[in-house]
Structures are given as C-alpha cells and as structure tokens.
C-alpha cells in the first residue's frame, strides 16, 4: 500500500544546501535550484500521491536571497520555497506541474525547480553535503 522510499543514497556533494532544505547547483553561468529528499519526505513521507501542487515563478522574476519564490503543497500542508541565491529566474521546470512524482523519484536531477542567473558570481556561504547531513542529524535531537 505505501510506497516507502528505500534506504536513501548519500546526498550529492556537487551542490550546496540551505537550512530550509533547498539545494543549489552551479550549471554554467546559471544555477539550478531544487529541494532535498528530506523536504519532500517531510511533505509526503514517501507517498508521492500526497503531493498536490507546486507553484513556481514566471521566468524573468528577480529574487533576493531568502525570498519566497514558490510553494509546494501536499494534502495536509503548504511549504514555501526560498531562493538560496539572489538573481533572475531564467527558466522553471515545466515537467513538475503535472508530474509531482518526479520530486520524490529524483529530487537531485530531474526534480530541479528553477534555473536562476545569480547576481554575483560568488555563491553565498551555504552548507556542503557533509554539513547538511550533520545539520539534519542535529535537527533530530
């Protein structure tokens, strides 16, 4: 009945993480932004059918670091999405709207949400994969 995700693999170390569970991955002169498996599990606990909506911004929107750029909604909760970097939204992942299950199946690659052209070449100080793991471990206690 339930579709629990199997033992999760390590979080990728090719990107940075925020305390609000977004990831940001450099890709040429832009960055891709998504949310972590932890965030998705908080929303749906491995039951991808519980994800009901993802609201993403229009391309062209300017974002400050930490600004809300969208929302993701499950049957029982709505969570804000926060921009990990300041910049301009250049693209959103059109596949997500009709296929929210992508987020639980592949949050790291196919599950990207927005592509942002950052205002600064230097990405803000965010956690690497090991620090994020530790952040999650401390959160549990």
């Amino acid at each position: 009945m339930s579709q629990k995700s199997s033992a999760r693999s390590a979080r990728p170390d090719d990107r940075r993480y925020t305390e609000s569970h977004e990831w940001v991955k450099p890709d040429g002169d832009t960055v891709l932004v998504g949310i972590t498996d932890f965030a998705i599990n908080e929303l749906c606990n491995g039951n991808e059918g519980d994800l009901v909506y993802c609201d993403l911004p229009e391309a062209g929107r300017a974002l400050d670091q930490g600004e809300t750029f969208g929302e993701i909604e499950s049957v029982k909760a709505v969570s804000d999405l926060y921009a990990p970097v300041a910049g301009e939204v250049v693209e959103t992942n059109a596949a997500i709207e009709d296929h929210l299950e992508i987020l639980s199946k592949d949050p790291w690659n196919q599950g990207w949400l927005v592509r942002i052209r950052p205002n600064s070449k230097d990405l803000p100080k965010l956690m690497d994969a090991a620090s994020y793991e530790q952040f999650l471990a401390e959160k549990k206690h």
Partner: protein
Amino acid sequence: MKHTPLHDRHVRHGARLVEFGGWQMPVQYGPILEEVTRVRTRAGLFDLSHMGRVRVTGKDRVAFLDLVATNHVARIPVGAIRYALFCRADGMPIDDLLVYPGADEVFLVVNASNTAADLEWMREHARGFDVAIHDQTDELAMVAVQGQESRAIVEKLVRGIDLSKLGYYKFAFGEVCGIPGVRISRTGYTGELGYELYVPAPEVGRVWDELCAAGEAHGMTPIGLGARDTLRLEAGMPLYGHEIDATHDPIQAGLEFGVSFAPEKGEWIGRAALAAIRAQPVRRLVGLKTDGPRAPRQGYAVVVGGEQVGAVVSGSPSPTLGTNIGTAYVPLALGEPGAACEIDVKGKRQAAAFCALPFFSRTRK
C-alpha cells in the same frame, strides 16, 4: 510526548507519526487520499486513544453538566449520545464533545488538545455539586471502525449486542474479544456507518489485532489522522481550532443542534451570550468548492466582487468529490449555494463557488 497503547503497532505498520494534542499519533500509513477513499468504499480502523475520555459520577452529575455544557443533558434518552460544547460566559467554545448519559454516570469524549482545559473548566465549576470527575483517558483506549463494511467486521468480535439494531448516535455495552462490558457506540467522524469502541488499555492491542484480522477480507486497513481530517471535512463536521474556537461560536457554525435554549435546562454558562448571537447572527459557515489547482487553507481570504468578505477555516483536496473543498465564514447575505467567489492564495485569486454543507454524508441520508 504521550504514546497510545497501540504505538508499537503503528510503528510496525510503517505509520508516519506526528505530535497531535500532546500525543504521538499516526497521521498516515500510506497515501492520505487513498486512505480517505478506502474508508468511503470499504472500511478503516482508527486509533483514537488520544481523545479525552472523562467519567462524571455523583448525584448532581446531570445538573452539573447542564450548567457547563450546551446541550440539554437531562433530556438525552437512555442509550443515546448527544453532541455538545463547553462554552465560556461569552459563548465562545472551550471544546466540543460527545455526551453519553448512563445509569450511574455520564461519559464524555473530548478533544485531545483540549482535555486538560476541559478538566480544569469542569473542576472549576464543580464546587457545590455532588460530582466526581474521573479522567479515564489513560485506562480506557479508543478505536473506531468506519465505513460501509464496518458492521460486518465489528459483528464478528461482539457478543450481546445486535449491531443492526444499534441506531446512529446510540450506544450499548457488550462483550468484545471476550472482554465484558465494552462500550460500543455508533458514532464517528467520517460521515460513514461506523462504530467506536472503548476498550481497557491493557486489552486494546489484542482487540486491534483481532479487528485487523476480521477486517482483512473486507478491505479494511488502519487509517491515520490525516485522512480522518479530510473525511470529517467532507462530512461537514466541525473541528476545534477551525470551524469553532475561542473566536468562532457554535451558533454561527451551524451547530445549534448541540445547544439547548429550552427553559427546563435552566441557566447555563454561555446561554445569554449565545442567545444574543442567535437573535442577531452576522455570519455563517458555508462550504466552498474550487476546481483550481490549490486547496482552500485556513486563513485564506474569501473574495466576492473584489472585496474580502470572509476567511477559510478548513480545506483539503477531496478524493470523494474529485475537487478541492473547504469551509469558510461569510456574511449572512452571502454564501448561497452555487454563487461564485474567489479564494486568495497568497495574492493569487482562484475561482471557487459556495456550496451547502455537508459535502458528503451517508449517515444523514
């Protein structure tokens, strides 16, 4: 955080456990919307041991409850159950509850998150009455079987009660899994045929297991509190903290069936304030449906003609209706079923329409 006597079983069954009213409770075992549909089409088993169970004894128990609760307790027939509220002098609810008058007691079932406040409220007003208030929450567990298959399932475990003759909002005592004197009521929070069983805590694990075994052939599975909330919303049943709370009175919530202004009930706490609201209501609770992508959520503005006219108090996707539903308070003149409105989802307007409550009910047919 408190655990119910069924906690280990929930963990073994892969439940997602969350804090609810001071208890760690299963919010879901699988996808929430599938759990809703399972209860609507077959049956579901719920652990409700977090709810407060209170036994009131003493010769003044009925007079006492007629002072602190809104319904007319002295008029509840033997074997019947009534909905009521505890309201403050200003008419605002402390909690809502079910009242089971018995031969030498009155049994109450209250919300988990308000149990402490309810006990304090009752004890504060018990002075001068010959009553004793016993909190039975820990000694007596509570499980519910809800859905069209529920009678066939519960029947297999019960001796001494003909469930086909137990009417809606009636209760009786019978033998369950060999345990004598178990209170069984035909009640629930789903809008379906269903039963609630009050089982001594040390025995409830066995009863749960036997119910699971008996229900297997009927497609019954354990159901979490997430689905229960959507089921109650579809059935138009209020939830404290949403449709009613310290700023939302029972009259404008449409719960007057749980409030008695009968002269024989005498004076009671909140009566004058609720009578004034009843004489001049200004708003009402209505249903909302929206085919847009977002579900109504508590706090979203309800907009008519470009103006905010009210606010959503509950909302959810509804698998039974195949659309997003919610409840909202709007001025009395608005909210006619079918009339168009919008909900404001954080600045984005989404088309919706008012509709009558409940959205769905099998019990009220």
